[in-house]
């Protein structure tokens, strides 16, 4: 437990900074960036702005205290800013309270479109269509409406198509502090050698109650083609 005795002299400053941060992050409707916190604190205290390191330290201090006190709130770093959320272990209460998932479910086609965009951005609609093999018009419009993607700029290609990319809101909705936190795309070789590769879809379809016969005799594809 962090107590007053353990803290260095700058204890009071840290505590006051932590109070400011907790209030700001609680009150804001979106992730609050460190520089925003610094500028607010500096204006109110009429002093120099706290460093990013001090802010991070104060956030850690808040989270440690919350954890020690078993409080169900934490400050997380999402989309380049700080955001207050509940902890996972109280999710059951909230799910019962809200009944349905308050968050919009993303269909597979939205997920695919997002996946392509977040690894390959900026990308044009034709590029996305090509990878998916289907027209992504509806998916792109839904994602734009949901604020998960945005038009970034125009490409220099013929027709100057629009270039799409993900938004900070996407990061927030997926609990990422930045795009660099996305897992790496797996390499083809790795994917193909994964034993789950051939079974994944089949078992998925089975689970959906779709009848399936045994697959044909294993064969050497080299000979048949």
């Amino acid at each position, binding site marked *: 437990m962090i107590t007053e005795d353990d803290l260095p002299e700058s204890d009071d400053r840290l505590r006051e900074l932590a109070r400011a941060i907790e*209030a700001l992050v*609680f*009150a804001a*409707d979106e992730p609050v960036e460190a520089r925003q916190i610094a500028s607010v604190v500096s204006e109110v205290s009429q002093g120099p702005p706290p460093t990013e390191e001090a802010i991070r330290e104060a956030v850690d201090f808040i989270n440690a205290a919350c954890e020690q006190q078993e409080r169900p709130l934490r400050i*997380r770093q999402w989309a380049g800013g700080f*955001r*207050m*959320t509940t*902890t*996972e272990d109280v*999710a059951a209460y*909230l799910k019962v309270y809200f009944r349905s*998932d*308050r*968050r919009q479910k*993303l269909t*597979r*086609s939205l*997920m*695919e479109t*997002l*996946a*392509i965009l*977040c*690894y390959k951005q900026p990308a044009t609609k034709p590029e996305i269509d*090509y*990878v*998916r*093999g*289907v*027209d992504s*018009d*509806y998916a792109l*419009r839904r994602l734009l*409406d949901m604020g998960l993607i945005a038009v970034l700029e125009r490409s220099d290609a013929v027709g100057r198509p629009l270039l799409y990319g993900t938004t900070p809101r996407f990061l927030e*909705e*997926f*609990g*990422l502090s930045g795009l660099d936190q996305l*897992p790496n*795309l797996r390499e*083809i070789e790795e*994917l*193909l050698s994964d034993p789950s*590769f*051939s079974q*994944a*879809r089949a078992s998925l*379809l089975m689970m*959906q109650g*779709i*009848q*399936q*016969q045994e*697959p044909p005799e*294993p064969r050497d*594809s*080299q000979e*048949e*083609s």
Partner: protein
Amino acid sequence: MYNIRLQDFEGPLDLLLFFIQRDEIDIFDIPIAKITDEYLEYVRQMDEVDLDGVADFIYMAALLIHVKVRMLLPKPEVDEEGEIIDPRQDLVERLLAYMRYKEAAEGLDVLHKKRGSLFTRGKASAPEIERDVVDTIVNTTVFQLVSALGRILAEASDAPTLAVEEVEYKVADQRAFVAEALSRKEKVVFGELVHDAPKRFVIATFLAVLEMAQQGLVWLALTPEADDFYVRHLSDPLQNGDLRLN
């Protein structure tokens, strides 16, 4: 034959990938004739797929048949350097690329679910201060404003379909249509003007009316029931001070 439903697949690539995974086919050596036949068999039962998806599945069918035909050529195709071209190469590359993103999508789904058990502050909780409303700075561009307008109009319609048999209605034509209607009658009810017409027609006409109103050619007024509006011909456009330009 497997009893599968096409709507379980995100598209033609997903369906092909399913065949490949199910039959443990070497993706670098796809038996194209066999897979094409199988693919076509499924596409034939495609009645249940909505119109949006049909075009994509049919396009892939055409592509597969084309690859199949090229495979049957007596002399293999060669590129500029004399290397033999495998007609399947493009398809394989697409399948491989699709596989990677499909898996990435599943990864995103996991992240999204995990994030779903973390809740942010609701509207009831709030800071206890008085907000200085008038001082808020609006962080919005004209482009966003225009997009909002586009959205209203787009949402007035049914879910969009691929432009297969859609007739194009142009705003200019609809202006003429409205002007013609108003030449017969000074005032028309918008709903009657577009009665039973396709959505696209309605929207084009609506845009035309908006445009004409903006130019002071017509004046719009709500019907007493407030569920429709009148479009009234303005004989003297100069009278119109409706748009307070500056």
